[in-house]
């Protein structure tokens, strides 16, 4: 029996007395008796924190795929980047952790200013003027983006590259059940999108990705032209780390940028909470999903920050709202602002460069292995797909024995029959972040050489 309640039994009696009641049950007298649980919940009784810690020790010990146990070459939207102690410490300050949404700006300048700084950083990394205060994750940020495009164009057809992460595509498909959007998937050829294979006319949005989920970089001029031609919005799903060296979404002409912000200070966390990045042009601001913080002044003329354009928020617009997002991922956004300030201009560039260097160093050795062949001759950033003679899942199983989470099989992400790949079950996605050392890569390549045989 454990809880965090302050009331002593005398106080409970006094309080009930004040209310003219005699038992705690009396508080629920107006709840129909037939509905009330007579036996309480069928659940183990309360345990002390140390007892629960013991239960959790069983969970953790049953996880083989921790970073302490396996060296990580897996990615696909969840990356093993460095998170320095200073970022963890600042991001876990309890004023940030235990605050609510900053509805009262006078006592929430801490969160508000941090979000303002975050918005500035995401705006710069996306190359677009407006960034919101965060969305749930990359996948649902894309949902908001297509909804924005549909609302903006009054159309419902979405042309989406098959290079967009399969989970993101699937998520868009799920929510399209409500919005009625029609999805047209442009297939991959040679690892990059073949836009001409689909009919883009009447599209609300052209959705490209940079790099794509196989790791390859596509020239985005083509989809941009298609968007312009068709008066569709151009949505770019972009790896925000790539922005350390590669062109921004804005530079490619995007109207909307979405991305997964996990690499900025958030642990792998078994997939969540992550951070949905969202930025757009000024033209779209009235449809912006989620919150937006703006600079203003207080009554004494001092700079202050506040959530703004609230009129657009779902709690005011109700059924006319274009998004229902309320709670978002503020703490991850604050953490991203801290991590990006830690990295600074040159740090992000260094991280991105090192990713590209490591990936290339690994790639050249790996495609030379017996039993491995290239999937594409296109450039890549920090990950790439290769074909394996053995099923990729078998290869991964073997690599575990040598201490590696050796990547992800394409079929585990996209299913065994994804149209975009000749054979997902024999396609392995390999990621190399700035954390991977030459020795780790070399050992990994040696293990892979055995595993693919």
């Amino acid at each position, binding site marked *: 029996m454990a809880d965090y309640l302050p009331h002593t039994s005398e106080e409970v009696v006094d309080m009930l007395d004040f209310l003219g009641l005699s038992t705690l049950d009396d508080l629920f007298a107006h709840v129909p008796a037939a509905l009330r649980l007579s036996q309480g919940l069928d659940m183990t009784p309360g345990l002390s*924190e140390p007892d629960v810690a013991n239960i959790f020790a069983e969970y953790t010990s049953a996880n083989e795929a921790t970073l302490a146990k396996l060296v990580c070459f897996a990615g696909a939207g969840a990356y093993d980047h460095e998170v320095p102690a200073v970022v963890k410490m600042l991001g876990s300050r309890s004023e940030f952790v235990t605050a609510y949404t900053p509805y009262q700006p006078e006592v929430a300048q801490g969160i508000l200013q941090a979000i303002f700084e975050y918005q500035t950083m995401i705006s710069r990394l996306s190359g677009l003027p*407006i960034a919101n205060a965060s969305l749930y994750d990359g996948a649902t940020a894309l949902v908001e983006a297509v909804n924005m495009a549909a609302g903006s164009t009054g159309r419902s057809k979405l042309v989406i590259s098959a290079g967009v992460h399969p989970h993101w595509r699937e998520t868009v498909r799920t929510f399209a059940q409500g919005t009625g959007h029609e999805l047209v998937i442009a297939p991959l050829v040679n690892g990059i999108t073949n836009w001409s294979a689909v009919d883009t006319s009447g599209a609300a949005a052209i959705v490209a990705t940079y790099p794509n989920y196989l790791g390859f970089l596509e020239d985005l001029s083509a989809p941009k032209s298609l968007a312009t031609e068709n008066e569709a919005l151009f949505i770019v799903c972009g790896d925000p780390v790539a922005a350390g060296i590669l062109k921004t979404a804005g530079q490619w002409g995007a109207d909307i940028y979405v991305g997964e912000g996990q690499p900025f200070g958030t642990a792998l966390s078994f997939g969540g909470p992550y951070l949905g990045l969202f930025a757009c042009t000024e033209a779209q601001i009235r449809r912006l999903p989620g919150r937006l913080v703006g600079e203003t002044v207080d009554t004494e003329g001092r700079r202050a920050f506040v959530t703004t354009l609230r009129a657009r928020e779902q709690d005011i617009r109700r059924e006319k709202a274009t998004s229902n997002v309320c709670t978002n991922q503020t703490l991850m956004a604050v953490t991203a602002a801290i991590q990006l300030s830690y990295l600074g*201009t040159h740090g992000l560039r260094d991280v991105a460069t090192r990713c590209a260097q490591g990936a290339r160093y690994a790639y050249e050795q790996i495609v030379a292995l017996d039993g491995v062949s290239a999937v594409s001759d296109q450039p890549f950033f920090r990950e790439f797909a290769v074909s394996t003679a053995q099923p990729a899942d078998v290869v991964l199983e073997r690599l575990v024995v040598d201490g590696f989470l050796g990547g992800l099989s394409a079929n585990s992400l996209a299913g065994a029959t994804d149209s975009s790949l000749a054979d997902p079950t024999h396609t392995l996605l390999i990621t190399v972040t700035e954390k991977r050392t*030459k020795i780790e890569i070399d050992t990994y390549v040696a293990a892979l050489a055995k595993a693919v045989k």
Partner: protein
Amino acid sequence: MTLKAQPGGRASSAPLLGNGTEPTIFEMSVAGRSSHQLRTTHVPAMTLEELVPSAHLNPDVVPLAEVSERDLVAHFTRLSHRQFAVDLGAYPLGSCTMKYNPKFCDSVAADPGLNSVHPGAPAALTQGWLRLMVDLEEKLCEVTGMAAATLQPSAGAAGELTGLLLMRAYHEARGDVRRRVIIPDSAHGTNPASVTLGGYEVTTIPSDERGLVDLDALKKVLGPDVAGIMLTNPNTVGLFEEEITEIAAAVHEVGGLLYYDGANLNAILGVVRPGDMGFDIVHMNLHKTFATPHGGGGPGAGPVAVAARLAEYLPGPKATKLADGTFDWVQPANSIGRVHGWHGNAMVLARALAYIDVHGGDGLTRVAQHAVLNANWLRHRLREVLPAAFDRPCMHECVLTASAFKQQHSVKALDLAKRLMEKGFHAPTVYFPLIVDEALMFEPTETESLQTLEAMAQALEEIAVEAAATPELVRNAPTATPVSRVDEARAARQLIPTEDAAQR
């Protein structure tokens, strides 16, 4: 020598030393300064030009802040001193359940045995995580009285939309085309927004003079085109819908489903269950009821639990216990598909499970009892100062009205709320629900002591006196806070959403 950058080592912006403003991190930036350190890798250092075709390279460098680690720490520590939080004091924000978040649950989530696991790793390597999810699902089903649940939705609103898509899938599987979803006028704004995104039309029904669903009005709008109804119970005025059984029967009769908005679940833990009331779909806000910290606006988690006949439509893949005792990802037969990039906000889920395990069934019941006790005590204690909008026993929160203050002293609910902040408490929720004039919605939660409630009541009594005697004082509040009242209109009129916009 240019010294335009702001000092990182000056604390004038910390409230500890007065209330100057804190420079932005960009204002503290000096080109060439840095914090970051990278490990030694010995990976060959190819140039960018060798690595990537120039068409892809950004000719410019994206500018970020360039600060020392010392200044980084000072800046964000000072920002934290400009932020109210549960850990600093009472936060009676109605509908938000700002209870104390046990640090133990944070420590669980800080364990690399959970948080360093890649979400794409094969199930064989993540059995601990899958088991945790299965255990949590089971417990959430017991709490809500439902048969199965998805843990994927990232927040309450995401849960709502997921629930509406489940409703749609259910009806469509029956070849049943339905058009409308009924919502009471007291509902939270996310409900109608979710309905729209779920592809339904909203039919709003008025609350009656008791603050409850008007059963007759409901019956009038029910029909074969009604997909379902969304309710919270206790509802957003903190009252229990006593006719819920009748409501459920009426909705079910026309083939509709009942959706339970779980934002107020804290009130009924272990006392009464949505499933037993007749609900078919329930979302929970783990960040409310199960005390996972709100993070200044997220992350949350909004699992959705459903009655058995809806289980086949749940999002997938779902962590599932197999016959051989191992765990794997299984896709429900007619799943609506994913609603999250991976498996949900896993670290939030872990925290919530830890919270549930510490409390157990008995502890969760006590949570509800004490939450309701506190709200009723406060309501009754304040009856002379701020009357309740509906004069009946409340559940975990009470909605009071300041309309008398507005009429008599031109002091609005917002003014009272702002002034309360200067007296050491966070403001209650104001102007929600929309059906109450000058609403002040207090949710003390079970973790505040009687002494805190009494002090808050006394503060409100003081403010009531001030509102009569010196209304300006209240209207101009707060002034002792890091910034005084903020010009919200200007922010919207003259939008400055980034440092770069500010510079222009």
